[in-house]
């Protein structure tokens, strides 16, 4: 097996495996931690329905940021929506229900959002005071992944990304025809996924705990 065969055909599986493992580990670790002191924050939304309503609104509108930190909201809301859009349109594209264009548009939006947030963090007095290397690194890392994906997904050659991904999904990977820039995108994207659950960006897991298991645990 050559290096490029490995990256195209084996590495994606390792990536997904480590991502799930890391996310699962975080989840189980936090689930195992007792909360002897109930650090409830009142008022607690009424019932499961109220809590779900709060959560869904927060996840889909980023309302708290919208209300108090509009400049950052513009960047971080579009960033997260771009990620969601990327996944959604990719699935539609794979199913032949959508052209490739919205997938690439999502990547562009992601890249622009990231550059904007990096700019904002460098230029807003308070955000600059709060930001450490870690914040810039996470943003830049994702920006590089987005840029690499844009380059790789630009129409070139005869090889279709759709065929490649379908191959991966059906466990018949065929990555021999991947070009150098495509291999790079797969590699960087994979690294990011492996890094994600171990980074501060693990809030896709942590929010469940900080809201449901801490804030909303009534005495």
């Amino acid at each position: 097996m050559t290096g490029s065969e490995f990256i195209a055909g084996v590495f994606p599986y390792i990536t997904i495996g480590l991502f799930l493992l890391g996310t699962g580990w975080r989840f189980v670790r936090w689930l195992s931690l007792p909360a002897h002191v109930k650090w409830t924050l009142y008022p607690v939304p009424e019932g499961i329905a109220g809590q779900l309503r709060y959560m869904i609104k927060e996840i889909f509108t980023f309302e708290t940021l919208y209300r108090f930190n509009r400049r950052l909201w513009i960047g971080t809301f579009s960033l997260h929506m771009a990620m969601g859009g990327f996944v959604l349109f990719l699935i539609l594209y794979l199913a032949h229900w959508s052209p490739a264009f919205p997938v690439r548009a999502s990547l562009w939006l992601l890249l622009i959002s990231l550059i904007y947030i990096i700019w904002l963090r460098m230029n807003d007095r308070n955000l600059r005071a709060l930001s450490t290397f870690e914040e810039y690194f996470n943003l830049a890392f994702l920006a590089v992944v987005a840029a690499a994906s844009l380059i790789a997904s630009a129409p070139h050659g005869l090889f279709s990304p759709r065929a490649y991904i379908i191959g991966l999904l059906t466990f018949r990977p065929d990555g021999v025809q991947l070009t150098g820039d495509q291999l790079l995108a797969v590699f960087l994207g994979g690294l990011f996924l492996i890094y994600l659950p171990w980074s501060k960006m693990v809030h896709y897991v942590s929010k469940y705990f900080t809201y449901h298991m801490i804030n909303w645990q009534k005495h």
Partner: protein
Amino acid sequence: MSEIKDETRGADPKYAFRSEAPLPREERVARLLKTLEGILKAGIYDLPLEMYLNTCAKCNNCAEQCQVYQATGDVRDLPAWRSNLLRRVYRKHFTPSGKLFGRLVGAKEVTEEDIDAMVDGFYRCTMCRRCAVNCPLAVDNALITRIGRVILGDLGFAPKNMTGSVKTQLLDGGNTSAIPKAAFIDTLDFLEEELQDEAGVPIPIPRDVEGAEFLFAAPVSDYIMEADTLIGIAKTFHAAKASWTIGTENFDAINYGLFYSDEKLEKILNRLLAEARRLKCKTLVIGECGHATKAGLLFQKVYGRSEYQDIKIKSILEVSHRFLKEGRLRLDPAKNPDLVTYHDPCNLGRGAGLYEEPRELLRAAVMNYIEMTPTRGMNYCCGGGGGLVIAEDLHTWRMEVGGLKKVEQLRATKAKIVVAPCANCKKQLRELIQFHKLDMELAGLHDVLGKALVFEKNP
């Protein structure tokens, strides 16, 4: 003006408040790490603490909620910046990534200067938890402040008035205001006379009644400062024909341990529970005091001795509210004609969810009521929370910085009376009213309730 010559004060002018006995500078770093390790190992705060130390996104939403930052505009007062003082130490010494990658992942070796910054920062936070309400990741900076304070307390940093009061309290039969038992009895007798004068019927303040349902413990400062609150509470119990008592061995609910020491918190809480046990009372009722209520409600399970777990702890607000709902209080709102507004003490509101109980009591007891803006979950702190109110050195800061937002908010209500059922808030609000010359008076909830209670002259 005469000047107080004080050698010890001059030694460390950079601290905003005096501490009794801080460790020598060179010993602080090692002790801080040891204490932090102890806290992490003790497993009391596991889940919230680990979440809060690991997941802040530095979005700075908290700054908009922080009344201290709003007043100063100082970067040091950004809640996330302050929390980071502890967070980066935790990451450096207690996480694998921090140990490996250091500054690359926001971790930093702690220095003596960092500890100075913590002494400054963690006592510029009133632990009001407003910032937690709108944190997208639901991180609560107040817990980080509290853990920071506990660590600093171990290093000998805590306002001298606070540690001194606790020392007095932990003496045999002691209390934070050092009221001797004979003086206490004299005060109760005086209050009974006042009760008779006001109500026209004899209303007792029962002492050491074994087997009473409720053991009532006020923040002891009430016995110096808040006659009306105590009178109102005695009237309420009496009107409801409740079985209650005060314990003369321990009558102080104050628990400053909540602000700087878990060890003290545990001792103080168990002393109070022991008094409930001595008198065989099923329920310990905490008077108008936010932090004491929270210390009891949150920490009984973890720090209360196993033999005291069956004792119920309740706020006087819950108890009086139940009396109201059961129709046991006859109230005449005409006795309180002035416009009244209500201040949610942080520890009773955000900390214990007691939002509607006081409001329903007030609406039944006053003619005119107006809400503050914002209110309930987003109400501003009095500006002296987190025990800052008892640090005399911080008085100017409390008036000019901590309480600034509160003053604007109070002024906007145009109310004549602001009701605050918390000893800490009462002291701070009274000082704010005087300092900023507001045309307003401060009252406890039971001051107002007591005035409205109607008693049959000839039953």
